[in-house]
């Protein structure tokens, strides 16, 4: 027994050390700097809670929170809807099942930046040209240049790419459901919709939970797409929180101030994830 214990420790310690060095330590550093006026270089003094007070007074920060939450909630819902539909389709008895699965997974292995650059081109050139040909005037300009529509462009790209990964998780979930249950429900005369609602969905609920949490957390940290597609613009209409932290912290030379913003944001994300897990786990059932 004792020997076994030391083997487990040997297995965990390296991971723990790496995690501490690359994850926990920088977090602690960030918290430390959020109480200073460090620019990212040079000397600094402690300023107490000044940065935190300023974060709450800064409407640019407030706007970025509003944008990020709007974006994250809508994208999370869309991603889960589409990936569940695709997973159901791919789990059914269809031809070329494996090829199709590979195709639907493809967006996941492409880099977020590259996907965004490709869509950037589509929005800037391809779509306006198409719209002009068909006489749809409202779409004849680049939607990324329109402050009311730019976020839609980002949602499209983010959802398109994220669906791939969540589909795989749902597929894995669907394959854990034993076929006897479906046989039983069809013997009982349940239709497709009833089967889904009373058999399939409760049984993949744990996957639904994890997908909702992962998607939400991922979208709250949206960064790559924004850098590549709008740079936070037009105006400041698509400035997500991570992007603001990066841009203000490095380009604007306000490292300590944005560290305070990051600490606030960290607390919020933890809170949301905990609430989400608690709430969604209640609806899960075990076989």
């Amino acid at each position, binding site marked *: 027994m004792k020997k076994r214990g030391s083997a487990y420790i040997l297995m965990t310690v390296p991971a723990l050390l790496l995690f501490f060095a690359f994850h926990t330590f920088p977090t602690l550093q960030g918290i430390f700097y959020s109480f200073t006026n460090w*620019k*990212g270089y040079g000397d600094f003094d402690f300023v107490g809670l000044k940065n935190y007070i300023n974060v709450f007074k800064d409407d640019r920060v407030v706007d970025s929170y509003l944008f990020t939450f709007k974006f994250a909630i809508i994208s999370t819902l869309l991603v889960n809807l589409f990936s569940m539909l695709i997973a159901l389709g791919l789990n059914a008895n269809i031809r070329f099942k494996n090829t199709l699965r590979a195709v639907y997974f493809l967006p996941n292995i492409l880099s977020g930046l590259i996907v965004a650059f490709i869509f950037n081109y589509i929005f*800037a050139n391809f779509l*306006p040209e198409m719209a002009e040909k068909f006489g749809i005037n409202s779409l004849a300009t680049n939607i990324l*240049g329109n402050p009311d529509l730019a976020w839609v462009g980002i949602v499209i790209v983010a959802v398109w790419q994220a669906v791939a990964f969540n589909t795989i998780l749902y597929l894995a979930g669907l394959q854990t459901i034993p076929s006897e249950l479906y046989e039983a429900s069809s013997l009982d005369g349940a239709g497709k919709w009833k089967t889904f609602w009373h058999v399939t969905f409760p049984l993949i609920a744990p996957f639904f939970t994890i997908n909702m949490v992962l998607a939400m957390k991922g979208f709250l*940290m949206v960064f790559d797409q924004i850098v590549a597609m709008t740079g936070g613009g037009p105006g*400041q209409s698509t400035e997500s929180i991570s992007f603001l932290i990066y841009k203000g912290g490095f380009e604007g030379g306000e490292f300590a101030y944005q560290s305070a913003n990051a600490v606030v944001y960290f607390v919020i994300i933890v809170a949301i994830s905990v609430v989400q897990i608690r709430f969604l786990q209640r609806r899960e059932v075990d076989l």
Partner: protein
Amino acid sequence: MNKKMKVFSGAILASLTAASLAACSGGDSGKTELEFFSTKGENNKTYQKLISEFEKKNPKIDVKLVQPPDAGTVMKTRLTKNDIPDVMAIGGDSLYGELARAGVLKDVKGSDLIKDVQPSYLDMTAKLVGVEKNGVYGVPYAANANAVIYNKDKFKELGVEVPKTWDEFIAIAEEAKAHGETGFYFTLKDAWTGMVSWNSLGAALQGEDFAEKRSKGKASFTKNYDEAADKFQTLLKYGHKDNFGKTYNDGNTAFAQGKSVMYLQGVWAIPEIVKANPDINLGIFPMPVTNNPEENKLVSGVDVMLAIDEESDHQKEAEKFIQFLLEKENVQTYVDEQSAFSAIKDVYQEDPKLEGIKENFEKGTITSFPDHYYPQGMNAANILQEFLIGKKTNKEEFLKKMDKEWDKVEERK
């Protein structure tokens, strides 16, 4: 997504570590490796040419050119890690001021390096550093200018001449519009491109020492920039139909293909335009912002400053390299290939394309970029972009927002 973020930041981390490791290695082969970091990407080929010549003359020194995209930000992330390149070529803007005040750059006051530099550029860059530090932390090398780039053939077709006043300038745009042409090709999806015209307008209209007075509360955007904001809106009337959907690169190509009569950019865009269409017949002139030709000056700034890391282990080699770049023939090569103006005495820009602003340099009717003196964190370009789109803020709200952001950044210091 989160995984992606990690891969993304991991890649940055890896490349930074690689760069820093590369900077420390070198000694083993008897060669000194000198890292040369440039915040500007357009001049890559010119630097490579000059570097290979330098390496031929100094076989013991190996110069490694680093020109990452978004270099200003990369520079700052590297500062955070105290990993500073031996030699830096940075713009004469607020980044230089920050670095100089942070004590990162070597003071070259009184050294041979600055003896041939035109004094006006030394003054201009000293202002960026401020009064707290009394030194010279970089060698002004090349200057740029904001200008109106125009298509000479189209001017001929329209039967118009280079304008000297604002009214003449707008009349040309009006004439172009009447003939179904685009007056200005705006590229406002890239927020910074709006700052080019903003700087031209502001420099002539904001009044003397705006930044200094603004910090003391004696001037404000609301009071001093009213006319500039109005005039920008006037310019916008002569754009194309997707002013906010096109980028800087789109604009260079579009202007090169003759899609507009004029293009509000800086001289740095000219090599890119010529690359897209070598046959284009273009000229430039300073934007006439007022109706008094005497008041219309050219907005010019230091585009490249050469600076040395205060703590570099290769001080001698670094100085030698800068000394080499400052040799007259090399400065000439640089300004010829980059459509730049020389900050070094007795080297001139002879390109006929740039004829239109040569006089300003000779007579000294030059003024500096207003936004180089704005506080860095205020994000002026995006606030301006928002105003120009005109959906969220009107003129009064926009000017107020500029004032507010300025104050916020100052307060957070």
